């Protein structure tokens, strides 16, 4: 009997377990999924909570109930992984020996790492919408916001869903217009990056959208401390941005047990992983998927989804003693909600930055362009998530590899003009 232990029952752990259960007979391979609780949050939904467009109850389900009945579920925090003994130690004292380990415990927020962030004013004037509690508290605060300076701040990369704080800005612009008080709200986006986004074509497009909406952009701001009482962000190089209400995306780390498992993770608790096979660099029988992996691509649900296919193939190959399939290309795909029932879509991978065009082919959804169709796509995605993505069903026309067709590539001369 082979034993597969999957740490984390979120997007990556659930879809991996369900896909593996379908291809590996239950009398030959046991699959165990471990998580510290039974609360599976549809994380893209958190963005909509502050604006009263959804409620945490509507984006939350049982983790267990998303898993095939022939998968064992354990609810306990993980204490540590003993890499030399191929054993997971749970906080409840149990031990789980494994033939293959999958690390799928995502990223965790560390607001306490930024001076003052969780001090006076936290959850009163300073919020995050990256947790259900934070998003709910912010919803209440926005309802009674009389106007003033609203600052959206990313403390440091990497963060989950790098477009989410931009989407928050666009939705805030829409929300205050609907309330009729947009002229009394000063919106500012404060980022450590040197532009609105990381990749040039998308950064220019998104930067232009901030400008068109009258949202101020402050770049290369590395937040050193947050003064909730005095209402100001202070950077390490002593610049200040004043606020009446701050929406902060705190720094992210890997799961706490990674730091407690010598040899498994990097300085931040993410697992160094081969970019194309998803095998960890720690041990050949350890794999990582989703936000938990240290890979040069966005931490996003779509990345996890596209990684799943390659990961499941490689776990089968590893168990059979065959060489691994190095085909994950860094494919990522994100809907960007832009307010007024519209959204943009971006599609990219390790090599290709987000470009205009259509997805998944010439007649698909418009890329890097606002449209109602993309907004509908974003709304419909939640149902797809619970009913297709987590159970591990393939969607016709949607492949793990990034489609090259449908994208408008900049001509070589335009590329040069941009670089100079």
């Amino acid at each position: 009997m082979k034993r597969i232990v999957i740490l984390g029952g979120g997007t990556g752990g659930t879809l991996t377990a369900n896909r593996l259960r379908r291809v590996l007979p239950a009398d030959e391979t046991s699959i165990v999924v471990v998580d510290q609780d039974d609360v599976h949050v549809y994380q893209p939904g958190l963005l909509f909570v502050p604006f009263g467009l959804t409620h945490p109850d509507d984006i939350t389900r049982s983790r267990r109930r998303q898993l095939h009945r022939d998968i064992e579920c354990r609810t306990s925090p993980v204490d540590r992984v003993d890499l030399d003994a191929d054993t997971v130690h749970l906080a409840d004292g149990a031990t789980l020996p494994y033939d293959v380990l999958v690390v799928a415990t995502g990223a965790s927020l560390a607001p306490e790492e930024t001076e003052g962030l969780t001090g006076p004013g936290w959850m009163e004037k300073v919020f995050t919408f990256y947790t259900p509690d934070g998003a709910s508290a912010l919803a209440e605060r926005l309802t009674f916001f009389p106007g003033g300076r609203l600052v959206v701040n990313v403390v440091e990369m990497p963060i989950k869903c790098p477009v989410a704080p931009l989407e928050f800005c666009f939705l805030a612009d829409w929300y205050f217009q609907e309330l009729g008080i947009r002229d009394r709200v000063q919106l500012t986006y404060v980022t450590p990056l040197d532009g609105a986004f990381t990749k040039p074509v998308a950064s220019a497009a998104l930067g232009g959208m901030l400008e068109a909406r009258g949202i101020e952009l402050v770049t290369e701001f590395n937040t050193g401390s947050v003064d909730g009482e005095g209402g100001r962000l202070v950077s390490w190089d002593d610049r200040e941005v004043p606020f009446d209400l701050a929406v902060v995306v705190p720094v992210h780390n890997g799961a706490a047990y990674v730091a407690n498992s010598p040899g498994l993770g990097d300085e931040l608790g993410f697992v160094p992983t081969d970019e194309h096979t998803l095998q960890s660099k720690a041990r050949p029988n350890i794999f990582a998927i989703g936000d938990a992996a240290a890979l040069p691509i966005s931490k996003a649900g779509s990345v996890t989804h596209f990684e799943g296919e390659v990961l499941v193939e490689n776990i089968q190959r590893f168990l059979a003693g065959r060489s691994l399939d190095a085909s994950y290309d860094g494919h990522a795909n994100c809907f960007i909600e832009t307010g007024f029932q519209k959204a943009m879509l971006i599609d990219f991978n390790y090599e290709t930055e987000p470009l205009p065009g259509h997805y998944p082919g010439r007649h698909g959804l418009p890329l890097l362009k606002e449209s109602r169709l993309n907004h509908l796509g974003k709304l419909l995605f939640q149902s797809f998530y619970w009913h297709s993505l987590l159970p591990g069903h393939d969607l016709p026309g949607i492949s793990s590899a990034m489609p090259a067709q449908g994208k408008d590539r900049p001509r070589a001369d335009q590329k040069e003009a941009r670089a100079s």
Partner: protein
Amino acid sequence: MTTTTLAGMEIELDDEGFIVDPERWTEAMAADLARHEGIDPLTDRHWQVVRFMRCEYEAKGSGPTVRVLGKTSGVSVKELYQLFPRGPAKIAAKIAGIPKPRGCI
């Protein structure tokens, strides 16, 4: 792309001032690169960070971010900003002759 003279050698720099080929960097070039960033002289504390960046790059293929530097270089984030006021990860990478840290995706 521009060409400049560092420690008596002709060296190619990219548009942001990073050495195009990290293999050509020598410790003798660091002082010239630092002066360009308004840092003069390079103290032992600067060197601790620059050498650390170089080691990390050679081991991992990419320079660390400020937070990782603060956790692992033996120099606190506060001091890193005192040493390299215009952005420690970027400026120290430039002086160490390694590519711009790609920590942000």
